[in-house]
């Protein structure tokens, strides 16, 4: 029998969630007060879960490694958040959002979860607006929408290019309200180092106070990992510098299966690498593809300035190849398109590893509309462009400024140069319909879980999923398990050494604490010759070259051997200075890189075993004649859930994906 029980409720797809949440076990208010929930991570998923659970009466503690929960990397999401409101009267519906997401994910996501996501999407917008999140408005005072990739409706809500910031600040304010009321205890500058389990059940965590270095034991009846994705395994990504896999990885080593680790999203529009000093990459929002047209010169090695290349000598390759969706194809398709053109020798810029994202056409279009609005007769080209630039500035001003800051070039005058970069990870801890991992009492929410995006996430769906999990899913599904805990507590209430009486005095906590303290001392005592950073860079190169946008058997096999060698070298030659009992960012990073190295190996292993191409996972051996991803639904329509068995050893478990409502088909955006 499979070790995986996805616990998907019976019934019709559009009834599953409403029926389930109306019939699951509840925890009464008095009992909630004695149940402690630990939330690790304070991004959209963590902050929304923590505030919602505290409002319901649970005792909540929140941990984040940043100095404030407001700084979690959700803050950097630019473009928007999807919701099936159909405010634009353009044919949107819960079903269509569900369908687009399943198709966008290349038929590798779980139907029931995705439908639930689409159902609660509308509630998210309502909740955020009620909190005072200033989403963009039209002149009549109603909410505004824009388009994102992989859809043909306008369902994306936004706040200029700072949607993630505004949504996170909304969730953060709800969280801080609970902190102020004493319902949430905030542990900022704390890093979770391990999950503590007793008889296989989650009972708390070990965390390090990053300022004092003190190792702490925290008891919880449930632990929620809302710790984001692991894109930094590639060293260069659009993730924040501190984004890491440590919490999820430690959970994995304690028995939580890791789902589809090889599914990585490479975002098509990022600012290209400028040199070896590069520490991270910056995204240029997908929303720019509403008005930016992607092209390369038709001639190879064309060194003319972009503005000197006449229209007929430009190849708008996405519009040419995908006339139905044009520049708004999903991210995986757009990224591969850029790579294909650059590899074929049509790339631009000094590195030749970039394509143009050009706003001139739509700037002129906006300019002409403005001229008409303002009754300007026969406007000159300059006048049109000036007016158009005002409109573009209003829509994307902060993104254009950011581009100029980084590159020193003015994107109002010359096209942006962009290239794909690692952005998001669809893979993550395997969870059931309740968002519980394979370890009882341990949950994963938001990007940290694998659940909703299949092999490719659509734009503006990450914010939706993070907030759906935190505001509208976990408040219902957590009770399913905690109601069992209430029964257990009641049965054990006279037991002198019950878990509830011992809490962190249980020997399991001391053992876990010692293990983590020893690990920290181990880093400091290697006293090798190479910096933590240098190992991270080398890992990133292996991953990007051999487990990046395109993968093949030979490369992946080599990568696994190289990563194993890198791991050995790390543990014998890393240099970590300073001490354990102080603020020591280098020591923090050592732990994170050690975990990334192990994860990297699993990602390659997963990519190697998946003998098909789907979404962000492109195996060169499996492509159609015109270079599109070729799925193998007969053999690979499953979630790969890896069970940790020891160093470099994993066992594969499969959750078969059943499509009962959407006909599985070859994805086409032509």
């Amino acid at each position: 029998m499979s070790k995986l029980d996805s616990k998907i409720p019976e019934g019709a797809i559009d009834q599953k969630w409403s029926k389930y949440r109306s019939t699951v076990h509840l925890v009464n208010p008095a009992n909630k007060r004695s149940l402690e929930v630990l939330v690790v991570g304070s991004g959209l998923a963590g902050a929304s879960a923590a505030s919602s659970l505290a409002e319901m009466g649970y005792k909540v503690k929140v941990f984040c490694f940043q100095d404030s929960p407001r700084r979690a990397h959700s803050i950097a999401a630019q473009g928007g958040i999807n919701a099936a409101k159909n405010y634009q009267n353009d044919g949107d519906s819960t079903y269509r959002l569900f369908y687009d997401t399943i198709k966008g994910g290349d038929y590798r996501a779980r139907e029931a979860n995705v439908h639930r996501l689409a159902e609660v999407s509308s509630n998210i917008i309502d909740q955020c607006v009620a909190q005072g999140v200033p989403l963009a408005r039209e002149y009549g005072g109603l909410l505004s929408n824009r388009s994102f990739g992989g859809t043909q409706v306008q369902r994306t809500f936004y706040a200029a290019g700072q949607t993630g910031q505004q949504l996170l600040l909304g969730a953060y304010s709800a969280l801080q309200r609970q902190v102020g009321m004493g319902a949430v205890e905030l542990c900022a500058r704390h890093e979770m180092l391990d999950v503590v389990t007793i008889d296989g059940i989650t009972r708390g965590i070990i965390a390090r106070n990053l300022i004092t270095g003190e190792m702490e034991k925290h008891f919880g009846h449930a632990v929620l990992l809302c710790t984001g994705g692991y894109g930094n395994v590639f060293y260069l990504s659009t993730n924040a510098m501190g984004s890491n896999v440590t919490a999820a990885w430690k959970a994995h080593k304690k028995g939580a299966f890791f789902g589809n680790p090889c599914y990585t999203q490479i975002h098509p529009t990022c600012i290209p690498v400028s040199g070896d000093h590069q520490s991270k990459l910056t995204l240029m929002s997908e929303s720019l593809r509403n008005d930016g047209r992607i092209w390369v010169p038709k001639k190879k090695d064309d060194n003319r300035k972009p503005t000197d290349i006449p229209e007929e000598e430009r190849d708008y390759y996405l519009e040419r190849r995908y006339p139905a969706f044009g520049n708004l194809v999903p991210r995986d398709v757009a990224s591969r398109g850029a790579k294909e053109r650059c590899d074929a020798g049509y790339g631009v810029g000094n590195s030749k590893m970039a394509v143009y994202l050009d706003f001139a056409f739509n700037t002129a279009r906006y300019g002409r509309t403005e001229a008409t609005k303002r009754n300007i007769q026969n406007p000159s080209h300059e006048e049109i462009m000036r007016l158009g630039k005002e409109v573009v500035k209003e829509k994307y001003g902060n993104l254009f400024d950011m581009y100029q800051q980084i590159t020193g070039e003015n994107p109002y005058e010359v096209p942006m140069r962009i290239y794909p970069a690692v952005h998001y990870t669809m893979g993550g801890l395997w969870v059931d319909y309740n968002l519980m991992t394979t370890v009882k009492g341990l949950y994963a929410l938001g990007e940290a879980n694998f659940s909703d995006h299949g092999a490719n996430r659509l734009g503006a769906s990450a914010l939706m999923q993070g907030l759906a999990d935190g505001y509208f899913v976990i408040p219902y599904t957590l009770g399913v398990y905690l109601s069992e805990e209430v029964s257990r507590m009641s049965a054990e209430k006279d037991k002198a050494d019950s878990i509830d009486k011992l809490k962190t005095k249980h020997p399991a906590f001391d053992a876990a604490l010692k293990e983590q303290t020893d690990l920290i001392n181990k880093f400091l005592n290697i006293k090798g010759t190479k910096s933590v950073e240098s190992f991270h860079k080398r890992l990133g190169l292996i991953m990007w070259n051999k487990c990046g946008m395109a993968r093949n058997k030979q490369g992946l096999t080599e990568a696994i051997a190289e990563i194993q060698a890198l791991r050995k070298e790390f543990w014998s030659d890393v240099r970590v200075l300073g001490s354990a009992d102080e603020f020591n960012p280098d020591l923090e990073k050592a732990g994170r890189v050690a975990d990334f190295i192990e994860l990297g190996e699993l990602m390659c292993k997963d990519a190697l075993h998946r003998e098909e191409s789907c979404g962000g996972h492109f195996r060169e051996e499996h492509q159609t004649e015109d270079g599109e991803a070729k799925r193998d639904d007969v053999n690979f329509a499953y979630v790969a859930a890896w069970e940790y068995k020891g160093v470099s050893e994993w066992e594969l478990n499969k959750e078969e994906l059943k499509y009962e409502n959407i006909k599985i088909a070859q994805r086409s955006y032509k």
Partner: protein
Amino acid sequence: MGSGHGTELNLTLKVWRQKNTKASGSFETHQLTGISTDMSFLEMFDVLNEKLISEGKEAIAFDHDCREGICGMCSMYINGRPHGPKQGVTTCQLHMRSFKNGDTIVVEPWRSAAFPVIKDLAVDRGAFDRIIASGGYISVNTGNAKDANNILIPKPDADDAFAAAACIGCGACVAACKNGSAMLFVSAKVSQLALLPQGQVERKERVLKMVAAMDEEGFGNCTNTGACEAECPKGISLENIARMNRELTAASFK
């Protein structure tokens, strides 16, 4: 690569080193050569730290995270200005092309009684979180909201609220102020919520609580000189302070 027209700089760095909150600190001087003008200021610090580690010396602790100017974590006081010489950018978005070959650059942590130094260039800004916890929110539990389009908000109000909400909570306003005042930070949140219909119910109570919390944290009084606005990387307007003062006056006379 990239724009590729980067040149290289040789620089002298004077960096504040301080073991912990209680220790007294001092400046340490470092020479750097071959710094590409395409690097960000923090990437220049990465180079310096790698150099220190290779020499067996402890790296300089500094706060940073998103490196795209939105998380508000980076916080260096560069040549006497929070986030350095360029207007409207955070330290992580400051690039070395803003400096000249041979420059001496002095780097200190935020200086404010309410932001104790943790180590080297990293400070504790927990006071900001506590101010928000005192009232910087709208009290609406999850699940209580009505349809979002039932609340009509005139676009100019929504835009003004958004402009105030763009604050990243970095603390440059406090670091820039001679009095170490947090008026710009607090007023941005007060303004955002006072401008919106959703924020009306708690409007008076909110400003009273937040100002009280601000005073309790040990921030100074407003100097009325506008250094905060000049140094704010997100262009948060001084108008917010004026609005908060009006709100406070109105709330004080019941």
